C-alpha cells in the first residue's frame, strides 16, 4: 500500500507492505523511499515496536507516545494499536439516518480508555459500505474525518481502496492511504509477527 502524507511544510509518499492476522497482529515494513526503507512496525495486541535498521534499534512505543504520529502521518500509534477494540470497547447504535446514509454512533463504554468521545460512521445505503467516519473528542468537538473512497475489487474482495484522513485542527494536513494490492485469507505464520522478524534486514 501507499501512504501520501501532506503538511504545510512537506509532502511525502511511503510505499509499504503490510501483514495482518485478525485484528490483533500487524506487521508493516516500509519499502520506499530509500531513506526509510527497512523501517518496520510490529503490533501485537496492545503493544507496538518500531525497528530502525540504520541504527539496528528496536524501540517499544511507550503509552506516553501512543497519541504520537505514526511515521509523521495523521494516523496515531494508538490508531494502529486500538483498531481491534472498537467492537468490544464501544457501544454502537443507529443515529438519525437520511435518504442516502445510515448513521452509526459509537460511544466508548465507561471503562474504555480512549481520547474519542464519539465516532460517527456514515454507511452508504446502496452498497452498505462505510464512506465516512467522523471523530469527536470528549467535548463533542469534531477532531478529524476519515473518508473511504474508490470502492473496488482487490484481492477478490470489494472494499474502499482509498482512505483519506483529514485532521480538522491542523490546517493543510492530510494523509491518504491507497491499497495497491491485497491478498486475503492467506495462511500467515506467527513468526511474521515476532521481534526476530521485526529486526530482519530487508
Amino acid at each position: 500500500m501507499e501512504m501520501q502524507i501532506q503538511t504545510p511544510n512537506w509532502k511525502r509518499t511511503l510505499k509499504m507492505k503490510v501483514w495482518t492476522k485478525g485484528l490483533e497482529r500487524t506487521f508493516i515494513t516500509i519499502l520506499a523511499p530509500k531513506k526509510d526503507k527497512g523501517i518496520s512496525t510490529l503490533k501485537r495486541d496492545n503493544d507496538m515496536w518500531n525497528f530502525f535498521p540504520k541504527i539496528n534499534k528496536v524501540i517499544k512505543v511507550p503509552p506516553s507516545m501512543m497519541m504520537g504520529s505514526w511515521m509523521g502521518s495523521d494516523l496515531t500509534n494508538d490508531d494502529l494499536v486500538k483498531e481491534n477494540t472498537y467492537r468490544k470497547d464501544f457501544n454502537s447504535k443507529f443515529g438519525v439516518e437520511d435518504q442516502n446514509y445510515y448513521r452509526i454512533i459509537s460511544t466508548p463504554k465507561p471503562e474504555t480508555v480512549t481520547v474519542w468521545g464519539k465516532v460517527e460512521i456514515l454507511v452508504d445505503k446502496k452498497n452498505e459500505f462505510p464512506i465516512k467516519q467522523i471523530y469527536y473528542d470528549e467535548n463533542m468537538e469534531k477532531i478529524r474525518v476519515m473518508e473511504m473512497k474508490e470502492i473496488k475489487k482487490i484481492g477478490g474482495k470489494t472494499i474502499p481502496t482509498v482512505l483519506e484522513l483529514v485532521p480538522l485542527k491542523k490546517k493543510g494536513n492530510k494523509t491518504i492511504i491507497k491499497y495497491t494490492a491485497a491478498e486475503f485469507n492467506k495462511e500467515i505464520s506467527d513468526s511474521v509477527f515476532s521481534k526476530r522478524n521485526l529486526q530482519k534486514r530487508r
Partner: protein
Amino acid sequence: MGMMVFGFTLFSFFVCIADGGYEIYIDHFIRERTGHLQIHQKGYLDNPRFFTAIKDPKTVTDDLGTFSEIESTSSRIHFGSLSFFKKKTQGVQIMAVDPEKEAMLTTLKKRVNRGVYFSGSSGHEVILGKGVSEVLKAKVGSDIYLIGQGADGSIANDSFKVIGIIDHPGRGMDDQKVYMPLRIASEFLSFGDRIHEISLIVKDGTNIPKLKKKLQQKLGDGLEVSSWEEVEKDFYKAMQADKKGDTVARFILILVMAIGVFNTVLMSILERTREFGVIKAIGGRPIDIAKLIFIENFIMALFSIAIGSIFSTFLNYYFSKYGIDLATPIEWGGIIIKEIKGKVMLACYTTPSKIILTTTFFVCLYPSWMAMKILPSKAMRAA
C-alpha cells in the same frame, strides 16, 4: 584628605570589580553563547519552532559580507532529539554549527577539553556536554544513536561518533547540549539549506544599536535582527535587577565617604574659627571666606584624586590580572564563573573623581555658610 584618598581608592576598586566584572562577564556571555547580534526568521525568537527557519541563508550571509563592522558570523540549527547509548537514553538539545566559523565566533573549540574538536571531515561526529555524557555513560570514541523528526516527516535516525566532551566544573550551558556539524545535521534532518540562526560578532562593541538598525534595513521585514539583550531577555532582566542592587551599595559607599569628608571639613573650620574671625576683622568679606574654604577643599580633592589614582591603579591592576579564585565555581546564565576579576577602565577613575568633586562641593556648603556667619569679636574670644 586621607578620607578622600581612601574613598577614591575604594570607589575605584568597586567600579573595577563591579562594572569591570560585568563587562568581562558579558564579554564571556557574548563569546560563549549569543554573539553581539543574531538574525532569525521573523517570529523565531518569540516562538522557536523547527520550521520557522531562514530559507535562503546564502543571500543573508552575502548581505552581511557587505558590512565591514562585522568581524565574524556563524550559522546554526537548533533541534531536539532522543539519544541512545547501550541501555541509556536521554532527550538532548542539539546545536548544529559551522565548525570553522563557530571556532572564530565563540569559544566552543577551546571549551572542548576531552577529545578533539570537529575535524571538518564528512564523518558523523558529535561533541557532548558533560551532563549528556554522564547520563549516557558515553566516552570519547563511543558511538551514540540519535532519533528525531526529519523536516520531511521521516524519522531521522543515525549513529554518531563522540569525538569530544566539554567537561568543566559546574553545570554550564554546555552541560545538556550536543554539538554537531551543520552539514551533517542538515542531512540528518533533510533540512536542505535552511538554518535557524546566524550569530555575529562585531569589531567595535560600542556601536551595536546603529549597526542593528542598518542590518534590519538591509535584510528586510522577513528577518529579525536582535541584540544579545533581546535574545536572552530573561537573563538580561535578571542582570539589570542585580545591577540595581549595586546602586544601593554605591549609594551607601558615597554616603559614608561624604560623611567622612563632611566631618573633616567641618572640623577644619571649627578649628580655625579664630583665624576666620581675624580675616573678617581686617576687612575680609564673608564671600571671600566661603571661596577660601571651597578652593582649599577642591585642591585637597584634586590631590586626593591624584594620590587615590595611584593607589587604585595598583589595586585594580592586581585584581584585573589575578582576580579572586572561587573555591566553588558558580553558574550564572549558563556561564561558569571560576574567579572574580576586575577590569581597569576609564570609569575606574572618572566615576570616583566625579563623586569626590561633587561630594566636596556639597559638604563645603554648610561649613562655608557657618564660616561666613562668624562674628569677628566672638571668633577672637574663642580659644
